[in-house]
């Protein structure tokens, strides 16, 4: 539970944004501010996590998130270890549960887990003593992505409350969309999702968002446009007829962007499909904060590791 007076998160794990309070999110973002300052120093390393071990258990491909966690851990002086799906004992048929028990026997402090299906981090957290950080579980949540997105927005816009945000693309299969919807609405922003109906899950309005199918119409009053990566394999499941038609309807082009405010920010969690959901000129253009997101990811993840250490220091 959050305690606004506390300077630590009073929870063992970070599994999702859905159960984070506004106070907890503020605490993480404020702490990330302090760590971002560290990243501008000549020597970018602090001794906070000396003697601690962070295991990055990535059971699905990832460059950005895995590397970001690794750098965050190293800058805090933790020992970081990376395990990938191909190199893990899971390929020998070991269950996640057994793997977790074996990891636990080696006494790490944190497990950062990326997993292809929802709920895997929750299972790990239920069964093990170490802190679990969800680095993406299927289409469920990607909490550190949403935190770094919120951090970036706050940094550029000064606040989150009252902002108008559009999330564009495959909402149904996006953990980034879910975590951002939970976080941004909790922080008082207004979120709209945009995409073809085949990409909009049922009852999404219950999460406090509105839905538009027309990109131009949907983005015209927005302060932030967050583009999601389109997975080409969805075409086979008839969720859209072709990449070409998808791009013609939903690609964020210079032309479409010319009709929104000068102040509008363009975000993307990466990896980008240039020319599919976003035009290269837009991804690299003046509205884009895509690379700021990547930089901020390190500060946010440092903040989280620090905050989750919580009572372990006092114990």
């Amino acid at each position: 539970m959050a305690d606004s007076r506390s300077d630590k998160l009073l929870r063992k794990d970070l599994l999702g944004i859905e159960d984070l309070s506004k106070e907890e999110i503020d605490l993480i973002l404020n702490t990330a501010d302090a760590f971002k300052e560290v990243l501008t120093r000549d020597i970018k390393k602090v001794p906070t996590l000396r003697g601690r071990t962070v295991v990055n258990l990535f059971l699905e491909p990832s460059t950005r998130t895995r590397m970001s966690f690794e750098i965050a851990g190293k800058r805090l002086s933790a020992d970081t270890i990376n395990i990938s799906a191909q190199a893990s004992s899971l390929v020998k048929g070991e269950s996640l549960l057994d793997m977790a028990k074996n990891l636990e026997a080696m006494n790490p402090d944190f497990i950062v887990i990326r997993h292809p299906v929802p709920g895997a981090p929750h299972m790990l957290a239920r069964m093990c003593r170490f802190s679990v950080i969800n680095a993406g579980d299927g289409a469920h949540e990607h909490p550190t992505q949403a935190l770094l997105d919120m951090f970036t927005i706050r940094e550029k816009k000064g606040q989150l409350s009252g902002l108008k945000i559009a999330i564009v693309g495959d909402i149904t299969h996006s953990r980034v969309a879910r975590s951002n919807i939970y976080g941004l609405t909790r922080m008082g922003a207004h979120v709209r999702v945009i995409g073809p109906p085949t990409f909009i899950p049922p009852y999404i309005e219950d999460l406090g968002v509105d839905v538009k199918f027309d990109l131009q119409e949907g983005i015209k009053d927005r302060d932030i446009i967050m583009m999601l990566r389109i997975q080409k394999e969805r075409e086979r499941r008839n969720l859209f007829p072709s990449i070409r038609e998808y791009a013609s309807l939903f690609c964020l082009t210079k032309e479409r962007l010319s009709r929104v405010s000068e102040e509008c920010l363009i975000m993307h969690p990466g990896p980008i499909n240039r020319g599919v959901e976003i035009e290269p000129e837009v991804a690299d253009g003046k509205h884009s904060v895509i690379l700021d997101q990547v930089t901020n990811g390190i500060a946010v993840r440092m903040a989280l590791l620090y905050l989750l250490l919580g009572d372990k220091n006092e114990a």
Partner: protein
Amino acid sequence: MKRKLFKGGRLINFANGEDASYDILIAGEKIDRIGRDIPAPKDTEILDCRGYIIAPGLIDMHTHLREPGREDKETIDTGIAAAAAGGFTSIACMPNTSPVNDTASVTEYILGRAREIDSVQVLPIGSITKGLKGDALSEIGELRRAGVVALSDDGQPVRNTDLMRRALEYAGMFDLPVISHCEDLDLAGDGVMNEGRMSTRLGLPGIPSAAEEVMVAREICLSRLTRRPIHIAHVSTSGSVRLIRRAKEEGLPITAEVTPHHLCLTEEAVAGFDPNTKVNPPLRTKEDQEALIKGLQDGTIDVIASDHAPHTLAEKEKEFTYAPFGMIGLETALPLILTRLFHQKFLDLSQIIQKMSLNPARILKLDRGVIAINKIADLTLIDIEKERVIDVGLFKSKARNSPFHGWQVKGYPVMTICRGKIVHTAISQK
């Protein structure tokens, strides 16, 4: 076998609306006398049943016993023990074993094992299609001769509508009921839970209600075409209840069952990603649950059946998406139903017992489900006030995959009598 005199139990007999205290004398496999203050003949075991309900033995028309083939999940032996402990005197077992029960020899094997164990009656259900593959009819006549009581491809729909039509027509020659697992596999896709608010929250792929309802509608059309009865297994949506209600109003021979878990849990139970809440059809919404209860009340739904689906701990200890569908139910069905439907005043006792005994007997054409002189003495004694916390550790079933562990329930079966023989008792007689 020694004669047994059951004294002073509250006898509930739906068939003739009886609900009063009686003595029942059992001689051999049959009921010899029913009356007030029956004097005990010599050499008779007397059982004091005051305070208990005596119901016709419960019949579960939807069980998975896993033997032959998956004895690591459940055997005929452990399944029977679980049934006896749950108050069931007959269980119908689905054919999705390995090998599939699509030939007389498999049916004979199951019946042979059950005969050796000599306890709860086991009623094999044969597969509609060879190997449950959906492309050719099983040898239905042979299965019938070997002793199957119904046909089903449970776990799978029969996708080919023409094949289903022919199965209904052909089975009609033997008067064999056909049980349909209604699921459009294309619509269900890779879904693992109900499609709705919760699947959107959790990011799990959903199975829409329509996946069930389009097949219920198809079966109704086929019943109209062939004039043959179809029993709809595990109805889970309000839309299915509406379709079945209309079909019954039209006079079509459609019957339907619902499981205790669809009456006791909703999709909300999936929130913690507990693989024990993963079941097919999936746990639905509160609105669906209300419609199911309404369907039980107005007779649209005829039967309560467990869909007892045992799995090993290792299989269920996986990530939600990777764990198999199914939960066990034989030992929790009656307590859950009494807690949810009787004590919460949705159904009275005679309705519950009708749906767990007489109606399944009628659908499967069994001479069971009533307590009467000269009938087989299959009885279930129930303590309607007994409160207990469900503990999967105490189950007779080999499996533990129940989401009801730790639930407080009220109303328990305390004795199960099959063909005059006590096969389970929780009563200590003084």
